[in-house]
């Protein structure tokens, strides 16, 4: 019973991811597997961003830089050095974590809008640099040799395996998000979000805590990057560092509710679902971006706490199950 109480907030998130993982198997359609993978990827990225954005209160506009950088490192090791997939994924995650550690020690000193601007600058600088970096293929990027997939039972089987690794990474992101949220370290982060100066006075080593929050929020995106570009077969600077994808992640976190474990999952689900509907609907097809924009504006103006935050405010009973 005690165990149950302790991990109650984890039930709904894990259930969502588990359902997503078995859904394609039940329906047996490859197209479903692809949409499920897109959602799982969004869940993993949004949950990771939430550690920095929701818990610590630092707005990163260029979080996708970790996805792209980790992806590049992993794909380079996989294709250039012949590393196996699992080692490349781990290396991609570590590389992103290391990048976050180095960057974080420098730019986390900035607050508010200045930090947001710096993250945009980092993303653009990295994109421009990779574009010139010959080891990573410059502007054409790295294309995987088709024979790479042989080790994983052919291309079709490799896609299937990638899907399950994707689900596992989404679970990993959730676990990190939940453990941070319920730990003392996470409590320190929440204090920094509310008032950084007061938190420091209360004995929280803010620079240390912020840097580790940044590192934790960067590792899974790096791993997801490797997996995605492995599945994709190639990696290019434009695909690896899309600034708009960073902002889509922010939208997902806001939609579901920043600072909650379940929020980013719900947000990722809702955003991808909505986009899928708008792109294919005959009425909204041409102006889907405008409709998404208008919806986002309504949420920001009227429900700034997001869906889960709003529910938690309105229905006190739900606070027990919605972490």
């Amino acid at each position, binding site marked *: 019973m005690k165990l149950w109480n302790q991990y109650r907030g984890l039930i709904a998130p894990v259930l969502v991811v588990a359902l997503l993982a078995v859904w394609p198997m039940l329906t047996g359609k490859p197209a479903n597997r692809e949409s499920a993978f897109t959602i799982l990827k969004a869940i993993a990225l949004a949950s990771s961003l939430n550690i920095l954005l929701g818990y610590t209160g630092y707005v990163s506009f260029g979080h996708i830089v970790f996805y792209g950088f980790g992806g590049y490192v992993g794909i380079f090791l996989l294709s250039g050095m012949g590393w196996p997939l699992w080692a490349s994924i781990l290396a991609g995650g570590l590389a992103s974590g290391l990048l976050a550690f180095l960057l974080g020690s420098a730019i986390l000193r900035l607050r508010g809008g200045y930090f947001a601007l710096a993250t945009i*600058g980092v993303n653009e600088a990295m994109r421009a640099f990779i*574009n010139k970096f010959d080891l990573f293929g410059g502007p054409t990027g790295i294309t995987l040799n088709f024979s790479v997939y042989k080790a994983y039972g052919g291309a079709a089987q490799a896609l299937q395996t990638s899907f399950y690794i994707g689900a596992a990474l989404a679970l990993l992101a959730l676990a990190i998000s939940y453990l941070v949220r319920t730990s003392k370290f996470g409590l320190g982060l929440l204090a920094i979000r509310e008032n950084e100066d007061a938190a420091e006075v209360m004995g929280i080593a803010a620079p240390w805590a912020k840097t580790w929050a940044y590192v934790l929020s960067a590792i899974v995106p790096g791993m997801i990057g490797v997996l995605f570009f492995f599945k994709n077969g190639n990696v290019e600077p434009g695909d690896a560092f899309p600034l708009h994808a960073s902002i889509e992640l922010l939208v997902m976190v806001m939609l579901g509710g920043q600072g909650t474990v379940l929020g980013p999952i719900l947000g990722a689900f809702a955003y991808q679902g909505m986009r899928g509907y708008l792109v294919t609907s005959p009425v909204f097809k041409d102006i889907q971006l405008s409709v998404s924009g208008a919806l*986002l*504006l309504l949420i920001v*103006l009227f429900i700034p706490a997001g869906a889960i935050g709003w529910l938690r405010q309105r229905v006190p009973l739900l606070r027990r199950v919605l972490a």
Partner: protein
Amino acid sequence: MQQFNLLLASLPDGILLGFVYGLAAMGLTLIWGVMNVINLAHGPIIALGMFSTFFVYSKLGLNPYLGVVPIALLGLLFGILIYAVAVHRVINAPHLSSLLATFSVNMIIIGLGTAALTTSPYNVDFFAGSLQLGSTTLLGTRLIAAFVTLLFTGGLYFFLYRTRPGKHIRAVANNRAAAELMGIPSTRILALSFGLGTMLAAVSGALIATFFPFNILSGGGYELKSFVIGVLGGLGNPIGALFGGLILGMLEGIIPAFLETSWVPVIEFGLFVAILLVRPNGLFGAKK
């Protein structure tokens, strides 16, 4: 020697471009200085300014510079509208809210613009003569644009320092609560400031349209440049933005003489992050 000639050819061009970059950044930095909002709808507004010039020149058949004054007025009104709809409710909320609110305006404009204008390039094919100085050619359109920028900078300076609404804007930027206690209608002043920032963006777009082909997405690049310039000149310091623009323009003129052109963004954004770290208030200090 060859490099020197190349420098002589590209440096004046870069500096003249820098004036217009500065004008765009001035709009961004004015809004930041007055209300601490980073306007992520800046790029699409620059693009709308470009299309306004296209409309004036190609559809109405008028001289593109005749459009500058009406475009400025429309930009002002449009900015006030954006403020009322999207920004006013989140003006006191955390940064994330205002960033996302202006970004949703960005999405709405880009979405409607893409549907109406497609993303294929448009071109304002206007030639305003050129000036030959030794081996260097200065295009008339760039000289006129630099001149218009100076006019607007002077006008903005005069407005902020010599007129009553301008003084109100500076008071609100300095301390909104105190300004309200002194009887300044802060909501109206905030709306006016947002309108002015939008106006400067639209005018810079109108001028850039005479240089390069463009589409509805072209504003994004200038928005990023505006961030870099804003930080160079000190966020919230409109006059610093003009100098920041000139510095960026000079860099764009100097770098290609020594390195490949594709190194320009690496250096620009590297410099941007470095300045944020070392001197977050910019080279010339923030709010004045």
